[in-house]
Structures are given as structure tokens and as C-alpha cells.
């Protein structure tokens, strides 16, 4: 009897393990992604990760190409009529997934739904502010619409790629509730299955119009199926790539880069990100109200070494708040080199020859780096005690108008790659991200002027002027722009990471 039980056990376990693990086919791409979409409604969320997923099913009027330039997508072209008016001409013959044709009605509906207060079952779209002062959308003919702003806002086109177009008929028939779980877009993929927190399965839309005319190749998606697997835990996501379960993973932790490079079937791909890291120094009280102390801080930190050793070289140094890819970026700003002697001298001149004691606030994910700063600083006589916080606690604390702490090691993202998205919040008086409490009427005036200036060259020159001032005054210690790091399987081709973090799978295929 016992023997037969044992035999049975062996048989079943053989059967169990012999059925192979699911191996991805040649006609599908699997992505190991950090978080699930929170909604399928492109108007009712404010999350970049959700947008990355949705962008494969919904196209917008415009889109950013791999150089981060804004190019027409559903639009054939657009023209700025005056400071408040933009006309968009739509391409003809674009189909939604259900076969309906795209018309100006859909565009008007899409944008009205976002800018009208309470339009989504009493809730206002959280994306409204991404449209700035947009006031009205007029239909000029079946394929032409006019956007009218309430006040000049020259970054309107730079912010437009963040909006996706929905179908008026479809939205009216399924309702807002239905929009949060169903997709009827104009994008290269259709939604097939969404298992919350687990996976999102998309299939090629065979009637796709081809995508942005200026982004080659134009045509329908190359693979038949795309599966987003939701794997929030870093180690598990890396494991899924290494075991061949997925083809792309986002947000690779720095310490796993070597492991992925060593594996024969996987590689690392990077792209300059859009997030600037800096040390916010509390400008509103001693010791950092003294410009010499701030400069001393800059000279005391060995930024190049930290990038090389701790970040494994996956970051680009910055000398102002703007990314090198951003509009208005000024090249050849003087760099504050690592020079402990000079730092000590500056501190002595500022009257702190005996050293300074400060607290360095940081979130747990950046603790290693903060400790490296602290070590550097102690060499010049600055005692910086690292204090680790939860992000949702320390961020709001530093956002309060009255600054009561010393240093905050943090960052600010700027997906628009326009100074409006980063310089205005972090450097203008009382900006949302002005952690350092910096306030300079000259800077404020330039930023305000640039905000409404239509002439691109003039606008850029205002921002460059601000950058020169910032580089001298060092309200914060500008550090670096990390690269976005992706782990990719060698069987994948036709895909490049993008600076705005979006994963667009239209052109990707399996070798």
C-alpha cells in the first residue's frame, strides 16, 4: 500500500513540474512593472505610471519623440494664432478600437471633460492643472478645433502630450464608471484583460492609423500581444527578468545593475532622466542665509566620486536646476569643483571657522548617498547628522511656508522638460517645491516674464539669466540627474527607453 502511495506521489509531482513554466512567445512582450494602473480613464488619475500604461492604448493630439520634442500624433498639424489661441487640424480616417471615426467632437469632449469642474460624477479631473489656463475648445469643422486660453501660457504645447483623447460616444454610453475599467482609444493596442494588481493584457489594434507621422516606423504595432505584469518588489522584478519571465523591467535598483549585465540573456539600458537631485539648504536662517556657507557646502562634496562609486556612473552632473535636455538650458555654467581647502576657507570667512552642526533630512531610499555627503562634510568641519524620514512625512514638512529645518536631500521631476515644470516651483518665491525658502525678486520677475513670453528665443534668454543667478547664489546645491535604468532581455528589439519614463511598445518586437 505504502509503495503505491509513494509511486503516486512521484508520478504527480513529475506531472506537476514537467508542465513547463509559461514561456513568452515570439509575438508578445512582457513587462515587469512597478505598479498597476489605478484607472483606465485617462482623465481621472494623476499618476505617471498609470499614464505610461494607458499611453499604449490611448493616443494624444501630440506626443514626444525620442528626443523629447513635441510632435503631432492624432493631429496633422497645429498653429499658434496668437498668445491665447491654438488651432489643431486632425488627421482623417483615424479609428477608435470600436471602429468609430475620430472627429473634432471627440477632441472637444475629451478636453471639456478635463477642464470642467465636477465633470466626472461630481469630481474634477485631477489633470486639469496640466492644461494651465485653457478656457474653451471650439469646433471649427469636423477635423479642426481651436483651443482658447484664458491668459498667455506658452508651455501649452509642452504640457499637451500628457492628455489622451477619448471617444465621446463611447464615454457617453459606458459612463464615467465604465471609463475607469474599459478602454476605447485610438492607440496601437487594445485592452484585453485587466486583473487588478496582477496584469494588464493588451492586443494589437489592427486598424491602427500608424502613429505619429514623424516617428518611424509608421504602422501597426509589431507584436501581437503585450502583457504588463505588476511586480512592485525590486528583488522580485529583477528575478523575473533574470529567469526570462519578462522582457523589460523598470526602476532597476543600482545594486542589481551588475547582476543583470552579467547574465547572458539580459542587459541594462539607460536614458537621461528628467529628475534633478539637489540639497535644499534652508536660506531663511543661519547658517545658510550666508551665501559663503552655501558655496562652501558645494565645494565640500565630492559629487563626481559619489556618482561614480555609489550611482555606478548612472547620473549626469548638473550646475543648475535644469536638465541638459530642457528648454532654456544654459551650457558652460561654472562648476563648483571638489575642494575641501576652499570650503574651509569660505566657512572661516563666513565666521564659522569652528565648524557647523546641522541635520540632513532624507528619505530611506537615499540614505546611502546622504551618508556619503555627511562623510565629505565632516572633512571640512561640518557635522551633518543624517535623519531618515518617511517620504510622505518629510515632504509636506519642508513644503510649509516657514522653514524650520536645515538641509533636505531631495529631487524634483520635470517631465515637461520646460522650466515651468521645475524652475517655477523650486526657485520662485513660495513655490510648491521651494524647499530652501529662496526668495529673489529679480528671479521672480524673470520667471514671471518668461511664463507669458511667446517669443521662444526671448523666453529662453530669461531662463538662462535665472540660471546664471542661481549658479552664483546656490540656493540649493545642484547635484545630478540620474539615468533611468531599465533591465531588458536580449530577445527584445526596436525599443528605446525614453527620458519621460514612458514605455511605448508600438515599435518593439522579439528578435
Amino acid at each position, binding site marked *: 500500500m505504502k509503495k503505491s502511495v509513494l509511486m503516486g506521489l512521484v508520478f504527480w509531482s513529475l506531472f506537476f513540474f514537467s508542465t513547463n*513554466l509559461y514561456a513568452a512567445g515570439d509575438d508578445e512582450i512582457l513587462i515587469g512593472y512597478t505598479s498597476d494602473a489605478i484607472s483606465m480613464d485617462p482623465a481621472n488619475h*494623476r499618476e505617471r505610471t498609470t499614464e505610461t500604461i494607458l499611453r499604449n492604448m490611448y493616443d494624444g493630439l501630440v506626443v514626444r519623440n525620442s528626443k523629447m520634442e513635441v510632435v503631432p500624433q492624432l493631429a496633422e498639424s497645429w498653429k499658434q494664432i496668437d498668445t491665447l489661441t491654438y488651432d489643431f487640424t486632425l488627421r482623417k480616417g483615424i479609428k477608435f478600437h470600436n471602429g468609430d471615426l475620430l472627429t473634432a467632437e471627440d477632441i472637444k469632449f475629451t478636453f471639456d471633460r478635463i477642464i470642467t469642474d465636477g465633470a466626472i460624477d461630481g469630481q474634477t479631473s*485631477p489633470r486639469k492643472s496640466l492644461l494651465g489656463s485653457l478656457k474653451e475648445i471650439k469646433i471649427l469643422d469636423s477635423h479642426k478645433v481651436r483651443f482658447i486660453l484664458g491668459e498667455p501660457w506658452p508651455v501649452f504645447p509642452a504640457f499637451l502630450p500628457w492628455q489622451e483623447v477619448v471617444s465621446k460616444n463611447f464615454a457617453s454610453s459606458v459612463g464615467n464608471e465604465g471609463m475607469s475599467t474599459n478602454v476605447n482609444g485610438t492607440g496601437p493596442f487594445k485592452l484585453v484583460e485587466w486583473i487588478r494588481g496582477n496584469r494588464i493584457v493588451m492586443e494589437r489594434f489592427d486598424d491602427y492609423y500608424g502613429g505619429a507621422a514623424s516617428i518611424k516606423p509608421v504602422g501597426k504595432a509589431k507584436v501581437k500581444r503585450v502583457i504588463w505584469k505588476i511586480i512592485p518588489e525590486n528583488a522580485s522584478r529583477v528575478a523575473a527578468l533574470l529567469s526570462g*519571465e519578462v522582457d523589460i523591467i523598470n526602476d532597476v535598483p543600482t545594486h542589481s545593475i551588475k547582476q543583470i549585465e552579467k547574465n547572458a540573456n539580459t542587459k541594462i539600458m539607460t536614458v537621461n532622466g528628467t529628475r534633478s537631485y539637489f540639497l535644499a539648504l534652508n536660506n531663511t536662517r543661519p547658517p545658510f542665509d550666508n551665501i559663503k556657507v552655501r558655496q562652501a557646502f558645494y565645494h565640500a562634496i565630492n559629487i563626481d566620486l559619489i556618482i561614480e562609486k555609489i550611482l555606478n556612473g548612472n547620473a549626469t552632473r548638473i550646475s543648475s536646476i535644469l536638465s541638459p535636455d530642457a528648454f532654456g538650458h544654459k551650457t558652460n555654467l561654472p562648476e563648483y569643483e571638489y575642494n575641501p581647502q576652499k570650503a574651509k576657507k569660505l566657512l572661516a570667512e563666513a565666521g564659522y571657522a569652528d565648524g557647523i552642526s546641522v541635520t540632513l533630512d532624507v528619505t530611506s531610499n537615499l540614505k546611502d548617498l546622504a551618508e556619503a555627503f555627511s562623510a565629505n562634510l565632516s572633512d571640512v568641519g561640518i557635522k551633518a547628522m543624517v535623519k531618515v524620514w518617511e517620504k510622505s512625512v518629510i515632504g509636506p*514638512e519642508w513644503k510649509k511656508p516657514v522653514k524650520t529645518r536645515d538641509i533636505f536631500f531631495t529631487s524634483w*521631476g520635470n517631465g515637461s522638460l520646460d522650466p515651468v515644470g521645475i524652475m517655477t516651483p523650486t526657485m520662485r518665491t513660495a513655490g*510648491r517645491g521651494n524647499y530652501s525658502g529662496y526668495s529673489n525678486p529679480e528671479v521672480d520677475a524673470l520667471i514671471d516674464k518668461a511664463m507669458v513670453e511667446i517669443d521662444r528665443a526671448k523666453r529662453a534668454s530669461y531662463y538662462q539669466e535665472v540660471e546664471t543667478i542661481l549658479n552664483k547664489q546656490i540656493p540649493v546645491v545642484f547635484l545630478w540627474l540620474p539615468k533611468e535604468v531599465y533591465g531588458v532581455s536580449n530577445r527584445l528589439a526596436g525599443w528605446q527607453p525614453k527620458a519621460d519614463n514612458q514605455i511605448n511598445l508600438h515599435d518593439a518586437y522579439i528578435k
Partner: protein
Amino acid sequence: MENFLKRLLRLIPVLIGISLIVFLMINLTPGDPVQIMLGDQFVTQEMEQTLREDMGLDLPIYQRFGRFLYNAAHGNFGRSFFHRRPVMDVILERLPATIELTLCSMLMAIFISIPLGVLAAVKKGTVYDRSSVVTAMIGVSMPGFWFGIILIILFSINLQWLPVSGRSTFSMSVPSVTGMLLIDTLLAGEIDSFFDAAKHLILPTITLGMAMGATLMQVTRASMMEVLKQDYILFAEAKGLKWFRVTFLHALKNALIPTITVAAIQTGQLLGGNMIIETIFGWPGVGSLVVQAIFNRNYPLVQAAVLIYVLVYVIMNFTADILYTVFNPRVRL
């Protein structure tokens, strides 16, 4: 029956009390959901205010609590700040996955630990006993997040036997009846899909059930040893009853009472453990959802989820009480 109703009534003040505590704890924790949601994206003050009003955060805290109690009593737990849909919808979508994982871990823990505990007690002092005590010790003290990752490295990366994460592979899809894949696949008669779901369950189940199993084994062993010393066991043996009958019918039945208590408490704790295990294994359950909600200060979701946890906890304890009467008729409810 009367007692049963009384116990149910007693549940009401418990739930209100817990709601108050949870409400205060999460609302008084520093952190602003509006700021977290907007992050460093472009926003105007006006928009920030609109969002705050949408979330009902413009009201003072006592008004918010009153509103929460009133709505909760009417079965409305509010809208998730981030999903912007009713919180209960969001939770119920994820609940079956958590129940499936918890049940499997509980069953695994019970069916493995009780026989092992009995054997350890019977063979007290032998190598078998000592090694199982040491194993249980390791099982209790090993942190789940570490153990889970070790299992992934061994079975998923090196041996490639089991999947890293998720509940099922793409190739399978069965109509959802109970929401629990092991049952749904069998109902649909899809044996391949059943095995697929089972494979996805193995690692998370072991990781989650490990600590509970180890604790149960220790408790069973201790109480078995106590019972085996009793006179009636000696008497049963003296009567010449078979070893099996004495151990499993006479002794175990009496020894199980403390095990049941511990099992009930531990099952409640499995729900807490779920948060970590679900995050590691990408298991689409309530646990990983709540972890995210806590970091995002998604107040309504955390409040509703905690209430569900409390309810499960209370039900588990109640079940344990009923089981006492089954195993020991002298106990009355």
C-alpha cells in the same frame, strides 16, 4: 443561539471603537494625500483646493469623522483618493486573492504542523523531536520577506521550477465564480490551469504559512506532552488500546484546544503578514493594496480595509470558540 446573537451585538461597539482609533491614527499621521498625489507635477493653488474638496479634506477632522461614521453605517466607505472609485469596489476586487492565499497557508500550516507536533511529543527526546524543535525555532524567527526572496532565488531563478510572481500566467483564464483560482479552475474543468494556479501559490503559501506552522507545531507538541502524562492515557494504554488510537483519538482531541486558539489568532496575523508577502510575490490581494494606501495616505481605503481585517479576526475567534465545543463537549458557549 441567544448567546450567538449577544456576541454579534457585542461586535458593534468593537467596530466603532476600532474605527475611531484607526481614523484618528491615520488622519493624525503627518502627510498630506493631496501633496502626495500631486508630487512634483505642475499644479495651481486653485487645483490643489479643488482636489482637497473632492477628497473632503477641507473639513475639520471631527466633521470628517462624523461623516465617515454616518456613511459607514449606511454601507458607504467613501471613495479611494487615488482610484477615485468606491473603496469597497477596489477592496472587493482584490479580496478573493488574499482569502485564497490565507486559506492555503492556514491549511498547509495546520496539516503539516499538527502531525509533526504530535510525533515530536510522542517521540520526546529523540533526534526527531530535537530536530523538529530546532526547525520550528528557525521557522518562527525567519523573517518572511527574507525567506520569500531566498525561495524565489532558489526555485525560480536557479531551478526555474516555479514562477516569480503573480497568480496565474497569461495563457489561462477561467470564468470567475468564487474568485479563488484553485476552485474556479476545477469548476471549469481546466486541469492545466489548475496546476498553473497551484504553482503560483506554492512559494507565497510556504512563505506565509511557515511562521504559523512552526508556532502551531510548538504548541501542539507542548500540549500533547501535557496530555500524554494524564492518567486516562495511561489507563487507555493499560486497556491495551492500539497506539494510534490512544495518541490520535484520546490524547490529540484533548490536546487540540490550545492549538485551536493559537491557530485562530495566527490566522488573523496571516492577514497582517500578507502585506509583506503579497508585495514580494506581486500577489494581487488586499495586503499589497493596503501597503500602498498607507504610503499614499489613502485614508478611506485604509479605514475600510482595517474594518474588514477586524471583522475577519473576530470571525476567526468565534469559529475557534465553536470548535472548542466540538472537541470538548464540556465547553459551552
